[in-house]
């Protein structure tokens, strides 16, 4: 083969690869400018994605067009997109969202948090009704540890004479409900071990291995029940009440809002736990879990 033909082949092959690659960027780039479709987002958290999928299927069943933009990282990544109107509907949690917009909030109880959240919501965005279901941070210990020291509330930790190490995401170390909060609200001092899985399996394993004695885990996490862990009560209100609450843009009309309100009304605490459990234990995709649940509450 002559060099010129070889060179030609290199060029052709490269061009072909480039074309391939540029086609590839197409299906990946979802800017959500999909006409009148309602853009629904979700956190990069399996439980949140199931709820978003439920919203999507309920709206589709009612004849709306829906554009799914799921698994968008953390709050800092997606909240700007909600505020700018690029995302129309997003399942959120009242307490953490309020803290995101208003870090110094004093509100702790369910209704106070919801009222403060309505206040704090920026222009062009609103929160719909909140659900009974909660998914909030809680201090968790093993059953064995709870029985050994007779613990039911966080305050009881004062009786523990062993060293206590708290395992949680890094941000807990500087947040008011982390070690500082334990010290100031309950007078309990703990060491801190960062584990970056948001109270996931690694945190649970560390608890069971005894590497940590105390962890922050979501109340709706099935691993609490599965691993026989105990959530300690929080009489001083370190953690804000955190109910499931849809955040909506102006693009959500009354008709669509009514559909979501119906879903919210059916979303009990037990429902959310069950949805999470099916995801973790039966290893089902969000689509299936959402469809089954909507059928079970006659909203399909």
């Amino acid at each position, binding site marked *: 083969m002559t060099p010129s033909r*070889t060179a030609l082949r290199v060029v052709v092959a*490269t061009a072909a690869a*480039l074309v391939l690659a540029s086609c590839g960027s197409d299906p990946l780039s979802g800017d959500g400018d999909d006409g009148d479709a309602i853009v629904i987002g979700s956190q990069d958290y399996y439980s949140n994605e199931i709820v978003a999928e439920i919203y999507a299927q309920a709206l589709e069943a009612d004849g709306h067009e829906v554009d799914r933009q799921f698994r*968008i990282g953390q709050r800092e990544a997606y909240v700007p997109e909600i505020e700018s109107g690029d995302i129309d509907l997003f399942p959120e949690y009242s307490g953490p969202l309020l803290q995101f917009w208003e870090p110094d909030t004093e509100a702790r109880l369910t209704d106070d948090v919801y009222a403060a959240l309505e206040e704090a919501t920026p222009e062009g965005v609103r929160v719909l009704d909140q659900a009974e279901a909660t998914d909030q941070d809680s201090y968790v210990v093993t059953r064995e540890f709870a029985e050994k020291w007779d613990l039911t509330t966080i305050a009881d930790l004062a009786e523990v004479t062993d060293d206590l190490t708290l395992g949680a995401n890094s941000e807990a170390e500087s947040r008011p409900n982390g070690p500082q909060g334990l010290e100031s609200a309950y007078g309990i001092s703990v060491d801190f071990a960062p584990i970056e899985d948001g109270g996931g399996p690694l945190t649970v394993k560390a608890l069971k291995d005894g590497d940590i004695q105390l962890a922050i885990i979501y109340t709706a996490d099935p691993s609490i029940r599965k691993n026989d862990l105990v959530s300690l009560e929080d009489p001083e209100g370190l953690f804000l009440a955190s109910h499931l609450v849809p955040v909506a843009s102006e693009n959500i009309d009354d008709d669509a809002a009514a559909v979501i309100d119906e879903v919210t009304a059916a979303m009990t605490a037990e429902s959310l736990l069950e949805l999470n459990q099916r995801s973790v234990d039966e290893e089902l995709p969000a689509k299936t879990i959402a469809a089954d649940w909507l059928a079970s509450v006659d909203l399909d």
Partner: protein
Amino acid sequence: MTWLENNSDWVVELTIQHLFLALAAIVASVVLAVAVGRVAYVRPRVRQPILAAASVVYAIPALPLLIVIPLVLGVPLRSPTTLVVALTLYGTALLVGTVVDAFSTVDAGVRDSAVAMGYGRQALFWRVELPLSVPVLLSGIRVVTVSTVGLVTIGALVGISSLGTLLTDGFQRGITSEILIGVLMTMALALALDGALVALGRLLTRWQPRRRRRARTPLGSTEVIV
């Protein structure tokens, strides 16, 4: 493997997304590295600075790079562009040294005879130097390909879907088989692309075995093959 049965559609979808993200970054890395490496080869004075810059880029941890790129380019954090740009930077940094080596392997005699035959600078590059540097170039591209396919997974940490999503999702849900599928599919994809490159290399360097064959026969050993 209940998880795989329930989620096979999703795995296929994520594999395709992963493939496109990786291909875009690999192709961009190769084009950029050949261009930059060519400059470094032709001008020895800038060679050291360019190679030093390449090791600086390679030393930047991936996670902050994913945060900084959107700040600089003004694209959303979870845009595929962010990831492709980051991976292109790594890929180019990894490849540039090999490109310089590849051009250095082109025999000076071959280059001189091409010039004597009337090849201009452009023709010399496209028809002689680039094709002849393919074997070394390809070895570098193979390394970049395998590492890029692996690195696409980190996009999952900032919400860019790929097989990496199975790693973070599987971790959250505590489903080991999901993580395992994510790891195995990523490896399979890397090795498949690597295999494709080897095949492409054979196609592009058909001149090579002929050269070796002739070189082995005593009479042909002095022949110059262009």
